[in-house]
């Protein structure tokens, strides 16, 4: 990790740097827009980005902010502040960090500040926690809340009633945003945003697919860092270009037999769940020491949202992880495992994400049965540092690696 950072500091033209800069620029752009007197928003990561992008609105993403705050060490302080306001420590740590930020309007040490919003955009396709959190932001800050509700889908496919319901809410959301911000919807611009989003999605899918090479030209953890741009900034031309650049770099690495994964690739694994941002090093180091590279995550395919028309666009938002039924959730993982040619799966039982973690054990059993690979779970949290034990993690990873080693020996 440190090595990669050094390289990036030396050469700021690498795709990694460009992608990081896109994320950073979104915050600055929002500050600038606010300074110009424009209305800016806070937006749920899986809210259809096509809407604010088409309207030319500047929005920032509390989930990304919370991840950044947690990765930079202030997750605990912010969570505790929120608990001091009376909220239970049982709630999702992203939501606690965000509600704390809404109260404080700044981070303890500038970990990741962002402008205060004039409206909030919510989509509950990833969880219902989301709309409660945004209700609270809207109440606390006394600003309008726009919500696109995408009900959890118990079926494998997205049906007509869902598509229609989402479409009607798209239209409502646009109307409300026009009223709030004074910006006007433009169908041509929308088409362009959709086209750019497709280009970005294709490039993201392709970039992620380089994990399928043996050995992989990338450290799978890198994808966690790029994901935010793939999800939130899909509609921006510079994102498409950055991911295309990333593809070119990976391609070159394959040709040159190079990788951002710096040790021999002894094992290839699925890492399931959101990263433990406060413990990126603690979670990645034992894997690195064991030569276990992450070559599969559900994000790879899940966030490469492809659509050919607006119907499929609506459906895509109903197919994000956490909105799909168990069978589809398992299939998404198993496909990723097969593509990534994995030897095992490591599942994060994320204390913050009730929905995800609620089906993870059964998902793990199915993956184990269907693919005959070891599946190991560990307890952690995406942002609250108090919910992770390094000792437990190390022991679990040790056991996991042992089984993979044995399997490898048997296979030889």
């Amino acid at each position, binding site marked *: 990790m440190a090595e990669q950072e050094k390289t990036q500091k030396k050469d700021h033209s690498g795709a990694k740097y460009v992608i990081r800069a896109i994320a950073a620029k979104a915050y600055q752009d929002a500050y600038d827009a606010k300074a110009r007197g424009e209305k800016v928003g806070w937006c749920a990561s899986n809210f259809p980005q096509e809407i604010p992008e088409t309207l030319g609105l500047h929005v920032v993403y509390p989930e990304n902010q919370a991840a950044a705050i947690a990765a930079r060490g202030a997750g605990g302080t912010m969570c505790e502040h929120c608990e001091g306001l009376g909220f239970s420590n049982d709630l999702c740590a992203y939501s606690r960090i965000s509600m704390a930020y809404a109260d404080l309007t700044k981070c303890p040490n500038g970990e990741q500040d962002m402008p205060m919003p004039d409206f909030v955009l919510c989509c509950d396709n990833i969880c219902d926690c989301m709309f409660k959190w945004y209700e609270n932001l809207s109440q606390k800050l006394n600003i309008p809340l726009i919500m696109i509700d995408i009900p*959890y889908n*118990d079926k494998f496919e997205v049906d007509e009633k869902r598509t229609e319901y989402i479409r*009607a809410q798209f239209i409502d959301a646009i109307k409300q945003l026009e009223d709030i911000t004074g910006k006007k919807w433009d169908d041509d611009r929308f088409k362009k945003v959709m086209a750019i989003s497709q280009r970005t999605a294709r490039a993201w899918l392709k970039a992620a697919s380089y994990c399928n090479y043996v050995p992989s030209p990338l450290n799978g953890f890198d994808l966690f860092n790029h994901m935010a741009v793939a999800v939130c900034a899909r509609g921006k031309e510079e994102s498409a270009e950055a991911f295309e650049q990333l593809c070119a770099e990976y391609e070159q690495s394959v040709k040159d037999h190079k990788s951002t994964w710096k040790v021999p690739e002894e094992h290839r694994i699925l890492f399931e769940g959101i990263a433990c941002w406060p413990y990126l090093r603690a979670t990645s180091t034992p894997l690195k020491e064991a030569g276990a590279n992450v070559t599969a995550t559900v994000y790879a395919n899940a966030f490469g949202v492809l659509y050919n028309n607006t119907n499929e666009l609506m459906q895509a938002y109903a197919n994000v992880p956490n909105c799909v039924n168990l069978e589809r959730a398992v299939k998404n993982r198993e496909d990723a495992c097969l593509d990534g040619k994995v030897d095992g799966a490591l599942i994060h039982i994320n204390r913050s994400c009730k929905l995800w973690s609620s089906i993870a054990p059964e998902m793990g059993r199915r993956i184990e049965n269907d693919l005959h690979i070891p599946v190991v779970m560990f307890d952690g949290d995406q942002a609250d540092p108090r919910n992770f034990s390094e000792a437990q993690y190390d022991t679990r990873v040790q056991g996991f690696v042992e089984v993979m080693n044995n399997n490898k020996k048997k296979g030889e």
Partner: protein
Amino acid sequence: MADIQKQLNAFTEIAQNPAKQLDKYVDAGKRVIGVAPYYTPEELVDAAGAVPFGVWGMQGPADEARQYFAPFYCSICQMSLEMGLNHTLDKLSGLMCSALCDTLKGFTQNWKAGNGERIPLIFVSQPQNRFSPAGLKYTVDSYKEVKEKVQECCGAIIDDDALFDSIRLYNKWRKAMRKFISLAGQRPTVVSVPQRSDVIEASYFMPKAEHLAMLKDLNEALEAVDPDMGDFSPVVLSGIYENIPDILRMLQENRISVVADDLAKESRTFAMEVSEEGDPITALAAGFCGMGNDSILYDPKKNHIHHVVDLAKENGAKGVIILLAQFCDPEEFDAPFITSACEDAGIPCVTIGIDQSTETYEQARTQFESFKDLLK
């Protein structure tokens, strides 16, 4: 008065023996459909000639459910799954369940994985944007699917007339429940907190027509008795449910009378109104879409908070007790707002954590005692 106690005992007998009830109806050749939270169109089950049977977990530890849920999930979902896995519910012909919170979503999937082959899931999809025509349309389409699934599980065809009969029955029953809540709250010297809870609980384990018949008699008898608060303090309960024996006992010991409640299992459910005209499925859908003042339902203006304060004011309550179901996100997001709204209104408020798997409630005992002092 002796007569009222006899009536109350009859409710208690049913409330405390759900398994006996289940056997009774199955032995009588009825199909029984489990009804899990929240606000599902249970009228369909009634109209299919089947018996709805509330599945809201049970007191006890989760054991087999641990294979599916880590410990940080609410006990309603943990224990309902447990009851499926340990075969307590094998006689059910289906389980109807909504997906109105994240834990319920996981629950539905785990139910299908662990129990689905024995007890099919009747998945009820409801919208959160309930105020728009699109939300209503979505509910109608979804309830049509629910109707088919109910028919399949009950081996019956539901016709519109039968459905309207059930709608009328449920409207009457909900009205009678609202009346009971108010009558009982003003007569704590006659109806104790555990008895009040049993009257409500019994309705989950029998056809509504039977419950309504008993309830009407009880309400009449209660009406004949003058309101008497005795030394009881009027209080509003807020939360999902209250029926934890220790908690009910403590409420009673502390001479608390529940003059109104904001509990999902109680008054939030009884608040629904369904039109008795037009298309019955649309009526049921509109009934759901018209619901509000609830932590579980999207509430952009957070009316729920003010509703609790209003309930307290309108019913002359001296305090609000939030019975916070442990690990319940929707409630946990609202609780601090309710607490501060009560503070602003000068109404004492306390939050007491509850869970079906908690063994002792010593902390709650102390909380109740100090809260009781605030009510004087």
